[in-house]
């Protein structure tokens, strides 16, 4: 028997000396891992729903909550002097009563107290009639009205300017048959026109959702890899650690980019938020964030034994980023310690970059520093993931 074995072995031994291939990077293997991840998620309807429907649900709710019809608005009026002024104010009250609905109250404001009233919060906007309103009407020239809005609450500002536009249009008294329409100019104490809460939040949510779901799903996917033992198979296969990490990044990128696109289409076409941006740049930010998120997930999964323990990372790793990343309070208004903390968190940079791209239409050079910070974060997380994979192979 041993002779037979020997002869087989000699043949095999001779063959393997030429055969043994040096481990070389293979894109094919990377694609195999990425394709497997895509396939697994397509099978996992619940995760898929979470990935695409949850953001839309949250956005819709936020849109409703943040941009609902603001009630108890106060419109200040700087009335024209004399008889004409009283007439205008009472005319406006009448019109408002006819329109019913709005819950808007009127209040006269002295001409030199406009901004002070707005700053004090005593009015949400002030409609300023010119001193020569009566004369203008009489002469048939269109009177110049100014609406000064407080502006920090986009929904109040929007509602007020819409109401006032209607009022102003209806102010042409039947007496002035010349039909001179008052011209309305709108100015803002803070912020600007066409700016809603959803406008401000949508870019941040694109970043948050990409990061959040990629992190959670990658952690769980990798945790399963460990708990079901497939990591052992991968480690002994020709697949290198770099190929494995790249495959994960590739697989998750498919979903992260698709998710960003779905969110973007939804906020732009359904919620109609302001979008001045460049899709390529937005994707670039998502890519950097996804690479960071996937690798942070791989790293974090080493510290979890169950899927519940992955969920337990949320309050530690994600909630601080949501609170401090500029979503609720501007980063620069945070107390010093938190301010510094905000600047070590990736979501802060993603928020800056996405806001600049979507709202301000900034280009690559302008968001460069933020993108660089995200790339640095991604590199740090790749190193952390590589470290945890080395532990697996020990």
């Amino acid at each position, binding site marked *: 028997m041993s002779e037979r074995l020997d002869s*087989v072995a000699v043949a095999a031994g001779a063959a393997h000396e030429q055969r043994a291939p040096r481990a070389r990077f293979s894109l094919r293997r990377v694609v195999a891992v990425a394709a497997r991840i895509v396939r697994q998620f397509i099978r996992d309807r619940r995760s898929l729903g979470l990935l695409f429907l949850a953001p839309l649900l949250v956005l819709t709710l936020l849109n409703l909550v943040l941009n609902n019809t603001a009630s108890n608005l106060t419109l200040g009026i700087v009335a024209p002097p004399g008889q004409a002024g009283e007439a205008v104010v009472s005319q406006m009250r009448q019109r408002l009563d006819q329109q019913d609905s709005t819950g808007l109250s009127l209040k006269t404001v002295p001409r030199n107290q406009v901004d002070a009233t707005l700053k004090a919060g005593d009015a949400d906007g002030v409609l300023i009639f010119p001193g020569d309103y009566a004369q203008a009407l009489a002469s048939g020239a269109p009177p110049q009205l100014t609406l000064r809005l407080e502006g920090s609450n986009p929904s109040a500002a929007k509602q007020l300017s819409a109401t006032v536009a209607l009022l102003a249009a209806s102010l042409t008294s039947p007496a002035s048959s010349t039909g001179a329409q008052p011209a309305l100019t709108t100015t803002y104490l803070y912020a600007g026109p066409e700016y809603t809460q959803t406008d401000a939040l949508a870019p941040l949510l694109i970043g948050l959702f990409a990061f959040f779901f990629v992190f959670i799903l990658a952690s769980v996917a990798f945790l399963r890899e460990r708990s079901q033992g497939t990591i052992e198979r991968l480690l002994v296969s020709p697949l290198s650690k770099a190929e494995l990490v790249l495959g994960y990044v590739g697989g998750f990128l498919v979903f992260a980019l698709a998710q960003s696109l779905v969110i973007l289409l939804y906020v732009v076409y359904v919620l109609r938020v302001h979008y001045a941006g460049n899709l390529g740049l937005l994707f670039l930010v998502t890519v950097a964030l996804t690479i960071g998120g996937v690798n942070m997930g791989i790293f974090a999964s080493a510290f979890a034994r169950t899927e519940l323990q992955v969920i337990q990372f949320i309050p530690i790793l994600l909630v601080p980023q949501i609170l401090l990343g500029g979503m609720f309070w501007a980063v620069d208004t945070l107390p010093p310690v938190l301010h510094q903390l905000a600047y070590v968190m990736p979501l802060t940079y993603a928020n800056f970059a996405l806001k600049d791209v979507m709202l301000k239409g900034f280009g690559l050079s302008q968001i460069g520093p933020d993108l660089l910070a995200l790339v640095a974060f991604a590199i740090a997380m790749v190193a952390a993931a590589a470290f945890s994979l080395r532990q697996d192979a020990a």
Partner: protein
Amino acid sequence: MGTLDPDESIRPETRAVAARDDTVVMVHELVRDFGKNRALDHVTMSIRAGETFGLIGPNGSGKTTLIRLLQGIGAPTSGEVRVLGRAMPDRAIASQIGYMTQSDALYGELSARENLRFFGRLYGLHGARLGQHIAEALALVELTDRTDDPVRTFSGGMRQRLSLAIALLHQPRLLFLDEPTVGIDPELRNAFWAYFAELNRRGVTIIVSTHHLDEAARCHRIALLRFGVLLAADTPAALRAASGEQDLERAFLYFARRQATSMRAAE
């Protein structure tokens, strides 16, 4: 087959034996520590081409650690491991090794075919050749009728069979099986062993760990491990003869007692 006393194999002159042409695995003075725990304690042995080599020992005796080191997962604390002529860890031999892990190590969301396809691609198989290998592997483990069902719907025995199919898919020269028959019924276990013998005939070397001593009897040679120490390595018949016992279980106990005695003597 030789009837070397295992103690002799540690002696330097026996390294000539280890360097024989048909040696596919050579382990010399291998030590592996995990912190303060010594999982493997100066293990020396060699495995020849085309044989089924059993690693026998209770849980925690170091079987899995040894199997992992032989495949280049982790590095020895000291000592030497050569597999297919290369010092481990070395990823260059990865494509010539098949590994059936202790757990099923399958992707439950994917079908049997998708699992096979994924692992096949990692080993550089693709296209028609991959399809052919998959069909053969599935036929071999008799899963052809469940090819496209998700693996999570499989029974334990079916999962074990698929796990074996994956390990064999790329036609490795060296097959590591870590407790391949845990939790499967006697009929399937018998089928597995019949198939291992067939693989041996095709020149495949099999390294199998088990704590079933009746399975150990079906190996060409076995290594008895206890607390990370190699008690003895030889053919089952030689081990029975050396211990003067009729069955392997009692032989194992004999070598275990001898180890305990020599440890006390050393203190």
